[in-house]
């Protein structure tokens, strides 16, 4: 496994897109803190940027990379290598590079400007978000053999989680405003990793006004520390479940 991982990591590190992504994140972060006089305002600005860009870049880059790794997979599969090892190596390689890019790009300014606890929370949450969308990309790229379709599925997944989901929840909330649907809304928020990440950070910052519907109810329901723990656990599930299904499908794929 280490052998395969070594070559995957080497290949991704040479990739210019990852370097450009790191620089872009660094620019966003430095300017977010530079423009706001108040560090916690800076964190909020940065949070909003991260919640849009990190999932998009992670999901798109990974999808394209997995499709381009077809030859690599074919080469390995005729040798005594377990299929699951190939898939896991690719996953670990891509997750690591996305996380490293994120930590270098946003981690340094966060540690410099924000208070330590918040910085660590942002770094953890952003890293989890990166890995989640790598896992989502693995799932969408195994669903179809066609590269264009796979990329399409990834973009739709991103659109759904980043933009449509909150709107849908809001819509439900207004439609059923006369009924006690708080529990349902809490359950629904677990269905979007981006929402969960937002809640995770905002619970830490304690600014309920910015939380949106799901976040506000989350805090009401669980209080801060339980809410943190629960959303953290749910984020981990968001990594494990898509990856598990992609792995299961990969093991049965004809190459």
């Amino acid at each position, binding site marked *: 496994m280490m*052998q*395969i991982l070594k*070559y995957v990591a080497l*290949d991704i590190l*040479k990739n210019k897109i990852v370097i450009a992504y790191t620089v872009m994140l660094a620019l966003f972060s430095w300017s977010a803190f530079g423009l706001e006089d108040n560090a916690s305002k800076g964190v909020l600005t940065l949070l909003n940027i991260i919640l849009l860009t990190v999932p998009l870049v992670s999901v798109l880059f990974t999808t394209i990379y997995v499709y*381009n*790794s*077809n*030859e*690599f997979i*074919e*080469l*390995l*599969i*005729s*040798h*005594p*290598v*377990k*299929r699951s090892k190939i898939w896991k190596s690719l996953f670990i390689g891509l997750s690591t590079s996305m996380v490293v890019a994120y930590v270098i790009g946003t981690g340094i300014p966060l540690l410099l400007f924000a208070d330590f606890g918040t910085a660590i929370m942002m770094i953890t949450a952003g890293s989890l978000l990166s890995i989640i969308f790598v896992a989502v990309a693995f799932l969408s790229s195994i669903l179809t053999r066609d590269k264009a379709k796979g990329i399409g599925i990834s973009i739709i997944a991103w659109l759904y989680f980043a933009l449509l989901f909150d709107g849908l929840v809001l819509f439900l909330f207004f439609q059923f405003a006369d009924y006690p649907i708080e529990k349902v809304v809490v359950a629904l928020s677990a269905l979007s990793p981006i929402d969960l990440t937002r809640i995770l950070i905002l619970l830490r910052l304690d600014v309920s006004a910015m939380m949106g519907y799901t976040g506000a109810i989350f805090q009401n329901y669980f209080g801060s520390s339980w809410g943190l723990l629960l959303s953290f656990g749910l984020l981990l599930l968001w990594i494990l479940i898509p990856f598990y299904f992609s792995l299961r499908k990969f093991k*049965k794929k*004809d*190459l």
Partner: protein
Amino acid sequence: MNPGWFPTKFDMITVKNITKHFGKFKALDDLNLTMDRGECIALIGPNGCGKTTLIKSILGMVLPEKGEITFEGKNIKNDDEYRRDIGYMPQIGRYPENMTIEQVLNMVQGIRKHASDVDLDLYNAFEIEKFKTKRMRTLSGGTTQKVSATLAFMFQPKVLILDEPTAGLDPIAAEILKEKIIAAKNKGCLILITSHLLSELEDFVSQIIFMQDGQLILHKNVDDLKATTGQATIAKSIIHLLKELKS
């Protein structure tokens, strides 16, 4: 050949009732085969008759929906280790574009850690040393085939599976490869080879498998085949047989 009543100790690979569909297309249709140690088997048939699918099923790249394949008596399903003993040369070798020849060779050697002494005959004969720092993307079809051949023979496997091995190779390289195949056969390897150039196989093939529409039409010793058809060469015998089948 292995008559049914004989203990199957010579069987290297057996294929039992394999069926595989790609969508509606039936690539393999209830196929049964036994391949023995030390044989050099030519797998022939028209385009799209299921040769490559059969090879890929043996390699575990394609997973048939029905039937089983055994390698030295063990079912290959959910097994990877049996591939230690197989050297595979694909019809069109596809390699990671950004890796150099050297990296590809090193990586595969790294994966096959057990391989004690590595066979570099083809590496030297094809003079791969000269362009080992080239990226796979920049290689010509022939050079890619040379890399594939080197990889297939590198770990001195018990079974060699060669899919159109000489296609795209220049005459000198093709001759080198042919000699290497004959040497492997003399060492007792089972060699499964597909080719459309029947005349090329003439020198070293001991059995013929003919497939059509995913079914086994014929599996015979070359000598028997020539004797029954009364022809001097494999190519002529096959053509003779095909005509017979049609009429």
